[in-house]
């Protein structure tokens, strides 16, 4: 990934934009956090949250005119959160504590004239930054208009207490000091900066500044260097006064640092946030009333009211995707992690597993209001890893060997329909359906030959998806080339695919491409047993049909014709979830793939129907009653079909090879040669437990056969004299397989299997 591409992707994700309340607050208080603090009954933290933005929380918390509430998202579903009342609750129940200043004192000096909220804020902000601040007030006390509030709303002792912080910040306070034009000139000489917090009494300002009284509204700077003033005139809003003071403080700091006053100040003013918050489906709630208006919220009421906060977030993609949840963050940070991982030259690439765990299914892009596709980034990065030779071999080796098997003579086959020497169509069942239910492939092929005129050829092989997903574009393109050549040898017939993954791989390459479901939706369906049809099924859309509404509709159409009532899962059609097979997740991260399945099958208690063999097998393997659409179409023994276990890896190979031999024999009257290899005659006795271990460790029957064949032929094995067990190994490719076994009359009982990738270099070890 290039740096600018990273930036482009990062910018798409708006999750880190502030909630509406914060964006709409003139000083951008983090009300969302405040609500969480209150919910946790952590008022210390609540005060800290307020103090982070508010100069005098005890005061502001009691008098703020809360423009945030006008924009609070809660109003879409109920009434706006009573943010201001909750702030008041906080300051009534927790006193402010001031942390010791950490910044080193600076030598530069600032004179602040006027101690209304504006001047107070400027003095406070700059003193906290370490400047030497002197505050001039013509009256005999600080606070200006603050004293005009009712004693009940803002008790005088609170004003005194809150403003005492100024002493602790070592601000020089000069009361009873009115500033005349002459004094001003002196201040300008004596101090590096002078700030006039007098905008409200604009007469004073005009008097003091004369014709130089105009002010820059963005920076609060006057035309005189080093002289700043309030920019709001006729303002009634206390929080805007604070914001105005803050704006000036920022400018003064920049002025004293000698940097640009105007650079990137856009987000200082209140603005509309880009954060997307989905409120659909959230129950509306009205504001929690106060039992005693004048006393304010009780703790119980405050908890309830703060509890109404939506804790505004986007995270739409994360809510839908177990992979994103697994790594605890969201795309904005994921793309950066991925970028950094890709950029590592020396050192550990901690992110590899994460990058290889994504299902590349595009759900995030379909859900995200900005269309961000994390899968695209993961896929591109896998390609980059492969091209740099940095792809961990163990991640996808097994899947790629499986692909090689499917494109080898063991499975691959291209034929015209028996008795034809041209093909108008060719059926491409795909390797997974052929492995999971070879008998259905036979049925579909027979059905198509019966229904369609012009010859229906057959092509058995792999579409190349594993290579594409594993980031190996070269392998993918080469596999596609062979596939295209085979297809051309049939005279470029119209391609009928049963598998949505194949469909997604062929979409661009083959203009005349049709899914089996589209085709069947318009053809007569096989005659149904009247006893088995009907009932309700929930549809699992294959993730590779995400942008194929035609296929999704065809599936529903077929179900309706078969008499089924359809239930839509919460995430369906364009937003459907992957079953954990997509992107080879189940190979790179089997634990995560399990969670993905568990999440998906918990969405509804209704029986599922899938039209991808992998979805069906993965769900059924976790105990979810799931039909394949073909089970319903060719409906025999549906009870068994729904709970039929997944076909394990070893038998997937066997099923494919058998299917090929059977079809060649029964349809084309050919007797294919049995595959060579003495190991194939080794008879294995496998119990359930060992089969499970084999499945987990991805060790195939043929791997075990080879180990035993070699050991028995050469005597290269270990023996346990007490039990008669043998332990032997073989390294047919970059994996060494170990098998513990016992020989019996009928064959070899397999007791345990394991493997490692590391190579042993000892001489005695062949």
């Amino acid at each position: 990934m290039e740096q600018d591409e990273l930036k482009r992707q990062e910018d798409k994700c708006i999750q880190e934009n502030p909630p509406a309340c914060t964006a709409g607050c003139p000083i951008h208080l983090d009300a969302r956090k405040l609500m969480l603090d209150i919910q946790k009954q952590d008022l210390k933290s609540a005060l800290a949250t307020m103090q982070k933005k508010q100069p005098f929380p005890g005061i502001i918390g009691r008098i703020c005119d809360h423009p945030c509430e006008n924009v609070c998202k809660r109003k879409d579903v109920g009434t706006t959160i009573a943010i201001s009342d909750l702030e008041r609750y906080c300051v009534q129940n927790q006193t402010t504590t001031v942390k010791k200043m950490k910044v080193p004192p600076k030598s530069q000096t600032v004179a602040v004239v006027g101690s209304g909220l504006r001047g107070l804020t400027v003095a406070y902000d700059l003193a906290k930054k370490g400047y030497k601040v002197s505050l001039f007030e013509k009256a005999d006390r600080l606070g200006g208009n603050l004293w005009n509030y009712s004693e009940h709303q803002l008790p005088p002792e609170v004003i005194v207490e809150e403003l005492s912080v100024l002493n602790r910040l070592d601000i020089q306070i000069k009361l009873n000091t009115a500033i005349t034009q002459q004094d001003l000139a002196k201040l300008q000489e004596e101090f590096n900066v002078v700030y006039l917090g007098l905008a409200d009494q604009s007469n004073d300002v005009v008097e003091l500044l004369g014709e130089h009284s105009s002010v820059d509204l963005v920076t609060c700077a006057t035309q005189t260097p080093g002289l700043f003033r309030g920019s709001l005139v006729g303002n009634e809003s206390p929080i805007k006064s604070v914001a105005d003071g803050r704006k000036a403080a920022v400018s003064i700091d920049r002025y004293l640092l000698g940097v640009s006053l105007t650079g990137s100040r856009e987000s200082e003013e209140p603005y509309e946030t880009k954060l997307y918050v989905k409120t659909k489906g959230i129950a509306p709630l009205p504001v929690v009333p106060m039992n005693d208006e004048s006393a304010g919220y009780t703790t119980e009421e405050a908890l309830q009211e703060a509890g109404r906060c939506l804790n505004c977030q986007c995270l739409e993609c994360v809510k839908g995707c177990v992979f994103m949840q697994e790594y605890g963050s969201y795309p904005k940070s994921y793309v950066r992690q991925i970028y950094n991982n890709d950029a590592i030259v020396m050192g550990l690439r901690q992110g590899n597993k994460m990058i290889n765990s994504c299902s590349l299914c595009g759900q995030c892009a379909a859900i995200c209001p900005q269309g961000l596709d994390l899968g695209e980034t993961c896929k591109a990065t896998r390609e980059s890893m492969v091209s740099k030779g940095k792809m961990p071999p163990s991640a996808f080796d097994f899947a790629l060997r499986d692909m090689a098997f499917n494109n080898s003579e063991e499975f691959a086959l291209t034929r015209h329909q028996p008795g034809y020497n041209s093909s108008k169509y060719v059926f491409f069942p795909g390797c997974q359906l052929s492995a999971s239910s070879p008998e259905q492939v036979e049925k579909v092929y027979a059905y198509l030959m019966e229904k369609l005129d012009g010859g229906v050829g057959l092509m058995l092989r792999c579409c190349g998806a594993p290579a594409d997903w594993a980031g190996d574009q070269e392998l993918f393109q080469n596999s596609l080339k062979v596939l295209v050549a085979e297809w051309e040898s049939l005279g470029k017939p119209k391609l009928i695919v049963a598998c949505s993954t194949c469909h997604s791989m062929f979409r661009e390459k083959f203009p005349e491409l049709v899914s089996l479901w589209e085709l069947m939706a318009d053809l007569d369906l096989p005659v149904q047993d009247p006893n088995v049809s009907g009932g309700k099924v929930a549809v699992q859309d294959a993730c590779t049909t995400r942008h194929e509404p035609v296929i999704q509709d065809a599936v529903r159409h077929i179900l309706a014709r078969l008499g089924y009532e359809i239930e839509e899962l919460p995430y369906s059609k364009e937003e459907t979830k992957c079953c954990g097979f997509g992107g080879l997740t189940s190979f790179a991260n089997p634990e995560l793939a399990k969670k993905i399945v568990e999440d998906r099958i918990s969405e509804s208690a209704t029986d599922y129907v899938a039209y991808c063999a992998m979805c069906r097998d993965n769900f059924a393997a976790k105990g979810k009653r799931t039909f394949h659409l073909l089970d319903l179409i060719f409906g025999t023994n549906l009870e068994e079909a729904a709970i039929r276990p997944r076909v394990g890896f070893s038998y997937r190979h066997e099923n494919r090879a058998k299917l090929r031999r059977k079809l060649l024999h029964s349809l084309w009257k050919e007797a294919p040669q049995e595959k060579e290899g003495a190991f194939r005659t080794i008879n294995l006795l496998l119990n359930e437990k060992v089969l499970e271990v084999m499945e987990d460790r991805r060790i195939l029957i043929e791997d075990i056969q080879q180990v035993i064949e070699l050991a028995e032929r050469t005597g290269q094995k270990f023996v346990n004299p007490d039990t008669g067990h043998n332990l032997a190994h073989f390294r047919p490719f970059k994996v060494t397989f170990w098998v513990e076994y016992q020989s019996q009359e009928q064959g070899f009982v397999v007791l345990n299997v394991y493997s490692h990738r590391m190579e042993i270099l000892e001489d005695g070890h062949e």
Partner: protein
Amino acid sequence: MNNKPNKTQKNPWKCGKCGGELTLGMIRASYLGNEFEVEELKCLKCGFVLITEDLALGKMFEVEQSLENK
């Protein structure tokens, strides 16, 4: 790597090639172009090496993974 096979647990295996006893020894191994030594069982007489399940799925796997991510 210091994944020592459990010494208290007696090793039940004998070399099937020559009938020799097995003993712990340093064994050279390599992965992705990196070479290192592992302590494992090998035949005293002919040097035939036995990798236990514990080693293969434990320390060996860990090292494989970290080398793959280098």
